[in-house]
């Protein structure tokens, strides 16, 4: 994935570049809003990491102008402004995500991966977490189990799920390591006006758990569900 990094602080920019490159991303860097808008006029970028405190203009203006050109380029805002108003404002202006400095680099890369998958620019359409592989294009779920007879080999068993169940699993796996609330899962499954049964998500999860390895999908009572990253 080709990322445009808009950040005026040079040490931060170079550290980020090095870090992201080692994760396999291609990073171009500019240190001014004007230069960013120039760069974005060509379709060389897949997404933008945008710092708000730029020397020539407010990062939000860059974002606004970008959106005005009907560009649906994914944008992650990186900033020291952590008030709720700033966050809401940033998301209102059209940012896809909002990260506050100082951040954990793993957090940033995780979110970049989510965008990567969404864009379909990942090297493969597979999401792998632990023993489970989810193929987003072929709509297949494969679980690897250790072959009893040949311990070095693993069997891949294909599981069948309904469309909604697949979507729930995909949402959880895409956001592996982050808790998704019931409301968030519902919003991924149902469009406005579609009737949602109050415990529809619970039923889907229950069905998923029956076939998937135990403890793959974890429930955090009162909060939501999570699939843990295996580290």
């Amino acid at each position, binding site marked *: 994935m080709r990322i445009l990094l808009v950040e005026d*602080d040079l040490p931060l920019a170079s550290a980020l570049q090095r870090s992201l490159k*080692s994760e396999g991303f291609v990073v171009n860097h500019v240190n001014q809003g004007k230069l960013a808008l120039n760069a974005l006029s060509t379709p060389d970028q897949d997404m933008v990491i945008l710092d708000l405190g730029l020397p020539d203009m407010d990062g939000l203006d860059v974002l606004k102008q970008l959106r005005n050109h009907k560009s649906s380029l994914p944008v992650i805002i990186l900033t020291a402004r952590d008030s709720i108003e700033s966050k809401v404002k940033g998301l209102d202006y059209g940012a896809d995500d909002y990260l506050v400095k*100082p*951040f954990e680099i793993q957090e940033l890369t995780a979110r970049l991966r989510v965008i990567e998958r969404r864009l379909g620019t990942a090297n493969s359409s597979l999401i792998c977490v632990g023993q489970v592989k989810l193929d987003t294009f072929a709509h297949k779920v494969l679980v690897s189990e250790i072959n009893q007879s040949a311990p070095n080999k693993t069997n891949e068993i294909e599981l069948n799920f309904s469309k909604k169940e697949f979507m729930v699993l995909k949402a959880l796996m895409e956001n592996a390591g982050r808790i998704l609330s019931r409301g968030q899962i519902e919003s991924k499954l149902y469009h406005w006006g579609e009737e949602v049964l109050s415990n529809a998500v619970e039923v889907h999860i229950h069905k998923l758990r029956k076939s998937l390895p135990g403890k793959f999908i974890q429930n*955090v*009572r009162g909060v939501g569900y*999570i699939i843990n990253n295996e580290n």
Partner: protein
Amino acid sequence: MSIRRYLVLTLFSVLTLITFIAAIQGYKVSMSRAEKQFDQQLIDIAQTLLAVQRSSLQTPLFINDNNSNISNKANQITQVSQQGSFAFQVWNNNQLVIKSDNAPSHLIIPAIFSLDKNNYFSDVNFLDKRWRVIALTHKNEPVNQTKIVVIVAQPLQTQFALAQDLILAAVTPMIVAIILLSLLIYIIITHGLKPLHQLRSELSKRNTNDFTPLNLQVNNTELADIVVTLNQLFLRLDTAFLRERHFAEDAAHELKTPLSVLKINVHNIAQDFADRLTTDKAQVTSTEIRNIESVIELTQSVDRMGHVIDQILNLNRTNTEQIVRGSTGFNLNLLLQQVIAELYNDIMTKKQTIELESEDSYLFAHEFSIHLLAINLISNANKYTPIGGIIKISVKLINEHDRSIVLCVEDSGMGIAPQEYTRIFDRFYRVGGDQHNSNVMGCGLGLTIVKHIVDVHDATIKLSSSNSLKGLKVEVIFKDNHALKAVKEQDND
């Protein structure tokens, strides 16, 4: 004491007192003048009678030069029926000549003939009344050596009644005047002090942190000056707070960016080492292993520094003015879910179980601060609860006479000894003072920040031991109505 009440009461008392003294004085003077008038009146009447008597004496009918006719003369007492209150007697040489029918037959003033006075006043009792009496003596020609004595009397009661009537008529207007004046005083003072009263009510309506200029039309110069000064003061405070906030924001930014750089660089080094370990395991030297350990320490130090900076900046930015201005209604349940999601990594690392027990409940408060409060409380629960422990968060609505929302965080950790309850809210204090457990990262500001936020929202915080989990139980009680009210008044401006 209220200025108005003081003025009204004092003026009223002084007015009443002085007028009263004046009235009494006037009464006394009037009474004595009246007495003099009455006496003068008695003299006039007496003299009139005397004149009449003298002229009648000169007629033949009454000439008497023969003492033998005394008894006859006694029969010739003339009685005059009297309409008025006066009683009179006319004596000629110890013989009663004329008397009014309301006068006695005996000499009203017995010793009068022996007295050698022309006008003689006295107070005499007769006929069951007390009378003011004048005895007017007229000596006839020295030849006859006779005396005519005219005695006129008026009941003191009558005199008194007359005088009283007069004086009261004079004094009554004064009393009415007092009442009227009091009323006028009250009205005038109230009106005069109205601008002051307006200023007071304007100021009391405001929030302690409202620095918008006063919108007051004041006619009198003193108050106008005061209002101007107050508005200048508000402006200065507003600017000062704004400056402080900008400073805090700028400082935050300047601190956070280098911190980010540090973190990423440290991560990169660690990553490089990790790669080295996986690809070139055999080639790794002991120096490199020591380096890796140093880098791990470095990472932890950087995290710790980041934590301290964050906490200090957070402590600084939760001041009252920001909070009151920035309060909104939001779903507390949703906020708690977000906080748990944010902290879930740390919770998972320690294999702890976390539970949220709440329904959708709405709080009127400063969302960012409550977010901070929740992060600190839950992060504490996570840090000070051992591996595999349990953290339980609940939100309860209490619907007694005062609606309140209780946010409760309990854990199965080691809790805090009750004697430490007051101290842990102190800045930079961690349980055990200088002997605190340094294995757990923290700088002692978490609960200080929490307490600060609690105070600013006019809420209360209670520490206790959890009955179910045996660890620490923290309850934050928000008076829902109060938070609502404070902001509603803001909106009405």
